């Protein structure tokens, strides 16, 4: 069990130093770009879909430890999930990092719970959520066929 007030959990430091699924995906079905110009955080999320199931997901880019670890943890959580499940996880995650009073159900949030400390640092919420908004944008693009760069600033 970790101290929820601690922002830089061991798991975050670990995912920052050795991000999982950190690669370009040449045969991706979908990709989207996320950029927070004020921070300089920049990432691309790649997706491979099998009908509505996320068969593979990866990312590349640069940013602070919070944004890199969040993207790494996100890709870890999403493989094999349906789009609808991914949406649900984002909702739960968003509440986890923004609502200081919400209860944290570690069973529900799993490893993403390591980012709960972000709720104590409002200035860093945009770092933790950039990858998720980028993922959303990639999934939306398939419906709308648009290609915008997403930002959480």
């Amino acid at each position, binding site marked *: 069990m970790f101290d929820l007030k601690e922002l*830089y959990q061991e798991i975050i*430091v670990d995912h920052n130093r050795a991000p999982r699924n950190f690669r370009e995906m040449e045969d991706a079905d979908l990709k989207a770009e996320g950029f927070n110009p004020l921070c*300089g*955080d920049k990432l691309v999320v790649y997706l491979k879909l099998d009908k509505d199931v996320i068969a593979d997901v990866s990312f590349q880019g*640069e*940013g*602070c430890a919070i944004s890199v670890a969040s993207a790494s943890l996100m890709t870890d959580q999403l493989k094999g999930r349906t789009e609808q499940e991914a949406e649900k996880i984002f909702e739960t995650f968003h509440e986890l990092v923004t609502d200081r009073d919400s209860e944290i159900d570690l069973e529900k949030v799993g490893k993403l719970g390591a980012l709960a400390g972000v709720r104590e640092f409002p200035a860093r919420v945009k770092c933790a959520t950039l990858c998720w908004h980028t993922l959303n944008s990639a999934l939306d693009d398939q419906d709308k066929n648009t290609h915008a760069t997403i930002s959480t600033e």
Partner: protein
Amino acid sequence: MSGVTNLVPSDVVDKWRKDFPILRQKINGKDLVYLDNAATTQKPNTVIDTISRYYTEINSNIHRGVHTLSQLATDEYELTREKVRQFINAKSLSEVVFTRGTTEAINLVVNAWGGAELKPGDEVIISEMEHHSNIVPWQMICEKTGAILNVIPMNDDGDLLIDEYKKLVNEKTKMVAVVHVSNALGTVNPIEEIIEIAHAHNAKVLIDGAQAVAHLAVDVQKLDCDFYVFSGHKLYGPTGIGMLYGKESVLEKMPPYQGGGDMIRMVTFEKTEYNDLPYKFEAGTPNIADTIALSAAIDYVLAIGFDAIHAHETALLDYATESLKVIPGFRVIGTAKEKASVLSFMIKGIHPHDLGTILDTEGIATRTGHHCAMPVMTHFNVPATARASFALYNTKAEIDVLKAGLLKTMEVMGV
């Protein structure tokens, strides 16, 4: 860096510190170590008390009433103008225009002077190390007038390339707008030389002194610049008050910036006659309380004196640069020959934002980000830097706390 002469004894600095009540704060349970002075400085008691005294004793509108309070407020407001005039050694009171800050002062010049003077094909020169506030307004007016914006490049130390500047300036150059001291790098630019070269081509010169006035004495007559701008809040004064200096002959020819009360002599629906300088550029009720408090800030700085301030801050910058460079992966961004009070840096493997957040948990306030100078970040190929910037109340002990904070950050981040 210029040589340090007389070191300021630490008991003197401790006395200065006592003048700043905020420095007694605890942040996250730790003593506040305030190293974000390039963003804004803290305020001494005399400034805080002046604002309180103004609202308690003399608050009223200026230049309007015949009643006693209005006269008192007007007198103090105009006394501040005289204080600022002396502070920068302007020739006359007509040359001191109060603004909201540096940004508004630049926008005033850009719109009133630039709007009237710039024609298609004219050229404006700025530098690669400008703050966004001395880039964007010029871009906007160039787009509007068809003038061309050129940029003096810098080298990897953060020194402007004066030879390149000499190639850029020509008979089409109408304005050279350059920062005195860089907020992102600490570079003190050779503005005397820059002004001389511009004037040889009949170009006007605006100097952005936002980062300079708290650290070095400015003499606008000696500099011979056409415009000089600064903000009160980086000079131990309040936010929301700044100043535009302009040569009288130049200001005379400029149309007003904003219309309204106080900037007129006579109004009919057919025609309006504008007020004399400097009131022509001060439309509406100004920021009276903070203007008067700026007086207290200037008094405070002058009582200590720039010799002592310079000696102390140079010693701090040298000490910080020396003691932090032993940290593995520590890299200074900005190693110009002449620097003032700013230490921008990176630590390998740690993003500046993570640094800033962890330092904050230790009570240490630093700036992290692009410092409103994105082109500087692009030059050094970094997304952001961390910045420690010093003021007269900082101490070597605080730099030791910063160093310990950086080492702790490295431990937390596994670097």
